[in-house]
C-alpha cells in the first residue's frame, strides 16, 4: 500500500480476492445449520452462563434413571420402579422446562439479532432454515427422552446376575423405547418451536411453551375428573396426557386404574393419532412462520 496522500485520489489494492473454489451448496448449508443449532441447544460454543441452564435440566432428567440404578445396585434388582413405558412420567417436567428454556433460543436469537437475512441471502431457503432448526432441536431432545432409558437398560443389564436372561426378558421393549423416545422428542420440538418462533422476545416465548405443557396439564386433569362429558376431550390439549397415552399404545399396555387416560375413556390409538397431528401442525406452523417473517 502506498502512503496516504491527501491531495490526490487513490484506490488501493488491498488484496481482496473472489472466491473461486467449489461451493458446497444448499445441502451443506442445511447440515451446517443443523449441527450449529444442535451444539447451541446445550450452550456449546457459547459462554459458560448459557451452558448452565441446559445442562442442569439435562442432569435432572437423568436423575430418575440414576436413582433406579442405585436402588438396583444397592438393594435389589427385583425393585422395578421405572418401567420402559412409564419413564416419560418421571422426566416430563424437565423436558417441558428444557423446551421452555431452549426453544426461544433456537428460533429467537436470529430474530432478535436480525441475522435471519444473512441466512436467507445464502443458498439456504426459508423452509430449509425452519426444518434444520426443528431437526436440530428434536435431536437435542432425544438426549433427554432416550438416553436415560438407554442408560437404564445397560445399567440394569450389568446389575443382574443373569445377563442373558435379562436380555431375553427385555429385548422386546427396545423397539418401543426407541419409537416412543423419538416420537416424544419430535413432538416436543415441533410444538414448542411452533410457539416460540412466533415472537422474538425470550420471555413471551418461554411463557407460551410453559403454558402449552405445564398449565394445560392440571386444567385438563380437572376437566376430565371433575367435569367429565365434553371436558374429557381436554386430554388432547395437554401434551403430558396424550404423550403418555401414546406411549402406552406403543408398548401395548392398558391405561392404569384411575389414570386420566382411563377416565377419559378414549382408545389409546387416538393418542398416537394426536401426537402425529401435533407434529404435522407444529412443523407446518414453524415453516409458515419463517416463510413469512421479515428478515
Amino acid at each position, binding site marked *: 500500500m502506498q502512503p496516504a496522500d491527501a491531495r490526490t485520489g487513490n484506490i488501493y489494492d488491498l488484496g481482496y480476492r473472489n472466491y473461486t473454489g467449489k461451493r458446497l451448496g444448499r445441502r451443506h448449508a442445511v447440515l451446517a445449520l443443523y449441527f450449529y443449532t444442535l451444539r447451541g441447544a446445550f450452550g456449546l460454543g457459547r459462554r459458560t*452462563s448459557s451452558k448452565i*441452564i441446559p445442562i*442442569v*435440566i439435562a442432569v*435432572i432428567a437423568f436423575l430418575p434413571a440414576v436413582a433406579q440404578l442405585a436402588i438396583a445396585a444397592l438393594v435389589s434388582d427385583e425393585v422395578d420402579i421405572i418401567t420402559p413405558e412409564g419413564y416419560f412420567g418421571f422426566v416430563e*417436567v*424437565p423436558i*417441558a*422446562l428444557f423446551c*421452555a*428454556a431452549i426453544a426461544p433460543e433456537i428460533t429467537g436469537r436470529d430474530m432478535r439479532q436480525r441475522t435471519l437475512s444473512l441466512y436467507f441471502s445464502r443458498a439456504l431457503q426459508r423452509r430449509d432454515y425452519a426444518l434444520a432448526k426443528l431437526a436440530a432441536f428434536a435431536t437435542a431432545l432425544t438426549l433427554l427422552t432416550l438416553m436415560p432409558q438407554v442408560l437404564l437398560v445397560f445399567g440394569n443389564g450389568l446389575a443382574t446376575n443373569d445377563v442373558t436372561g435379562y436380555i431375553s426378558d427385555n429385548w422386546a421393549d427396545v423397539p418401543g423405547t426407541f419409537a416412543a423416545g423419538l416420537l416424544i422428542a419430535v413432538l416436543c420440538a415441533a410444538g414448542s418451536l411452533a410457539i416460540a418462533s412466533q415472537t422474538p422476545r*425470550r*420471555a*413471551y416465548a*418461554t*411463557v407460551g411453551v*410453559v*403454558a402449552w405443557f*405445564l*398449565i394445560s396439564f*392440571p*386444567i385438563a386433569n*380437572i*376437566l376430565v375428573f*371433575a*367435569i*367429565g*362429558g365434553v*371436558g374429557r376431550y381436554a386430554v388432547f390439549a395437554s401434551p403430558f396426557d396424550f404423550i403418555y397415552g401414546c406411549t402406552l399404545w406403543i408398548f401395548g399396555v392398558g391405561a392404569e386404574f384411575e389414570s386420566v387416560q382411563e377416565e377419559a375413556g378414549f382408545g389409546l390409538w387416538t393418542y398416537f393419532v394426536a401426537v402425529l397431528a401435533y407434529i404435522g401442525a407444529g412443523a407446518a406452523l414453524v415453516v409458515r412462520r419463517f416463510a413469512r417473517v421479515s428478515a
Partner: protein
Amino acid sequence: MIDPTILRLTVRQLLGQRRSIVMVLFALLPVLLAVLYALENDSSDAQEWTAKVALGGLVIGLVLPFTALVFGTAALGQEFEDGTAVYLLAKPIPRATIVFSKLVVAWAATTAVVVVSAALTGAIGLSGEPGEGIIAGFVAAAVVGSLVYCAAFLWLSIATSRALIVGLLYVFIWQGVVVSLFSGVRYFSISQYALGIAKAFITAPDEIFDPRLNVAPAVLFAVLVTVGATWLSVRALQRWEIGEAT
C-alpha cells in the same frame, strides 16, 4: 422509600401491553372450571373440591406463582433486557427506593389478578355451601403469597439474566416435585407458606383442607423470605454492572 415516578413508569410498562390481558384470561381459567364444576356436580363434596383442587391446587399452586413470575421478573428484568435500567440507575435515588417501588407495582399487579381469581373461584365453586372462611383464607393467601413470590422473583431478575427459567425450575421442579417427595423441605416452599396462612382463616375440618405447614412457621418463613429477598435485591442492585450489549 417509594418513588411515584418509578411507580407510574412501571405500571405503564407492566400493564400497557397484551401481557396484562393474557394474565387476566389465565387467572379466569380456574373461575371457568369452577362454573363448569358447579353445573356438573351436586354439592356433596363442593367444599373439599373448592379448597383442595380449585383454590389450593390451581389458584395457589399454579396461578399465583406463574402470575408472580411474569410480573415479578418483568418489573425490573425487562428494563435490564431493554437497556432502559440505566435511566433509573443514573439518578441520585437510593437503590432501595428503586427496589421497593418496583416490588410494590409487581405485588399490586399480581395480587389484583390472583385475588380476583381466588375470590370468584371460591364463590362459584362453593355455590351456596357454607364457606367456613375458605374464601377469606385463600384471598389472604393470595395477598401474602404474591408479596413473597414477587420479592423472590425480583431478586432473581437482578441476580441472573435467566430469571424466568430459574423461577420456573423453582416452581415446577422444587415445589412441584421435590417438596412433594420430601416433606422435610416444605419450609422452603412459598406456596406452602401461602397455604399455611390460608388455614388461619379456615374453620372447616382437616378433611376439607389440611396444609403441610402450620400458621406460625408459615408466617415466620414468609416474612423471612420477603425481607431476605428484598435485602438481597437492594444489595445486588447497588453492585449491578452494565453488561455488554446483547
